[in-house]
Structures are given as structure tokens and as C-alpha cells.
């Protein structure tokens, strides 16, 4: 029982660490934006006012493409899971030591 709780505690910490690393990695891959999640991305295109006559100037066309871009919530969620896993593992280690003590007595 003691060993099981200790293994479970260690596994919880490792799982939390994996979540933190994964969330940080994915967030970094999405550009490490400090903004919030976005489900569409703005793309601005320069369209000539008159085709084949760029000397007359351009008009900016805004196009929204449906695409999920992760924001700051992702690493925050990862960090929160990590904290919860640390707290859970502390409880598990505390319980295991308590059980071990009882067994010795």
C-alpha cells in the first residue's frame, strides 16, 4: 500500500510535469502569444484598386481564416495542472508515510 501510494505520487508529479512541458511546447509552437485563444486569424492582402495598374494604389483586404491559435491560457492551464499534481502527490506521500508509521508501530 505504501509503495503503491509512493508510486502514484511520483506518477502524478511526472504527469503534471508532462502537462506543463506539453502546454509550454504547444504554446511556443503557436507563436508564444501573450493574447487570448483565437479561432480565426486575420490576414491582410494588398489588392490593387484597378487590376494591372498598381501605380493607382492598393486597397487592404482583410480575410479571416478559421484556424485555432493558442494563447496565454494554454501555459497557464499547464501550470495549474502541474501545481494540482504537486499538491496531490504531497498528500499521497503524506498518507504513505502515515501508513508506514502505523505499520512500524
Amino acid at each position, binding site marked *: 500500500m505504501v509503495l503503491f501510494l509512493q508510486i502514484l505520487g511520483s506518477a502524478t508529479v511526472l504527469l503534471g510535469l508532462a502537462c506543463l512541458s506539453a502546454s509550454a511546447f504547444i504554446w511556443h509552437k503557436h507563436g508564444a502569444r501573450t493574447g*487570448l485563444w483565437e479561432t480565426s486569424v*486575420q490576414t491582410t492582402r494588398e489588392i490593387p484598386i*484597378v*487590376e494591372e*495598374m498598381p501605380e493607382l*494604389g492598393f486597397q*487592404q483586404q482583410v480575410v479571416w481564416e478559421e484556424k485555432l*491559435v493558442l494563447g496565454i491560457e494554454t501555459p497557464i492551464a499547464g501550470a495549474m495542472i502541474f501545481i494540482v499534481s504537486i499538491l496531490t502527490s504531497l498528500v499521497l506521500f503524506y498518507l504513505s508515510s502515515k501508513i508506514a508509521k502505523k505499520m512500524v508501530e
Partner: protein
Amino acid sequence: MRNFILTLFLSTGLGLAAKPIKFDFKDPKNVNNVIFQMDAPLESINGSGDGISGTVHFDPNDPSSTQGTILLDSASLHVGNPVLKEHIHGSDWMNVKKYPTISFKLSKLENIRKKGIDVFADAKGKMTIRNVTIEMIAPIRITYLKGLLEKRNRVAGDLLVIRSKFIVKRDDFGIRAGEKLEKVANQIEISLNVAGAAPSN
């Protein structure tokens, strides 16, 4: 008699030339848009609106007499974050159901400067957002392109391009006045980029 006919012909011709041309800003190519930007602590909020319509009467010989109205369908306002978009469309912010249109009624152009094919001026008019109307002046750049509508829309006629960048304040239009300033700035930077068509038919 010959002189009289010539004078009549010229005056009629000049009279016709002086008539303002009506430009429709409903763009079949769907390029016309308004881009807006607001400062926020994490990241600036960028969005756009493409529901542009309205008409402007422009006289190439007398740009100061330019008049018209540019309308924006407030439900066409879009930002990348869906929750934020819901907030912007919601009753506390733009209330798009109750106030479906944002308008700028241009009454005249002042301080006109011509530079090449462009006319730079200060557009004096009335901006209406959430049923609150405020008189304001916005710097404007107008490009009149005679006979070039055909190359853009495959219809004979003229083109009028209007570009402008200006700032409106949330406070002025009662958009959560004095509230949430730590989350969203009071100033909204607006960039207008529209082309109007005047088919000659």
C-alpha cells in the same frame, strides 16, 4: 446665332461636368472594409468590419462639395477570439441587435490639398455609433479614377477610393464609458479603406 449655340453648348457641357457623381460603396468584390484596433494589457485587439454600404456625391471640379454617408453593418464586426466577439456584439458594447448600423455622414471637405491623383482633406461630418451622434473631423484621402470602374468591376464608369485613419473614444459614444479601461483602452483606432462605384449606364 453661331456664338449663341456655342455658348449654350459650352455652358450645358460645363453644367454637366460640374454635376456631382454619385458613388455607391456596396462593393461586389467585397474588398471594402474598416479595420479597428484597441489597446489591451495582453495584446492589442484587432478586428475588422466588411459590411460597408452608402453613397457619396463627389464633384471632381469641386471636391469641397463632397457629401454622402458611409454605413457599416455593426454585426459584420469581427475579431479572432469568439468570446471577445460575443462581448463586442453584446448589449454592453456595440449592441448590434438594437443598433445595427454605424454611420458617418459627410457634410463637407475642408482644407483641401491636391497631390497627383489624390485629394487630401479634412472630412467634416457626423459619426453615429449606438444612436449617439457626434460631429467630428477626420483626415481623408480621396482618389478619383475616371473611367476605371470597367477594369475593376467589368462595368463602365468611374471609381472613387476613400482612405482615412482616425480615432474615436468609447466614452463619447457611451460604449461602457469610463469602465473596463484597465482591460480595453478608451481610444479605438479606425482605418477606413473603401472604393465606390459610379456606373455610367
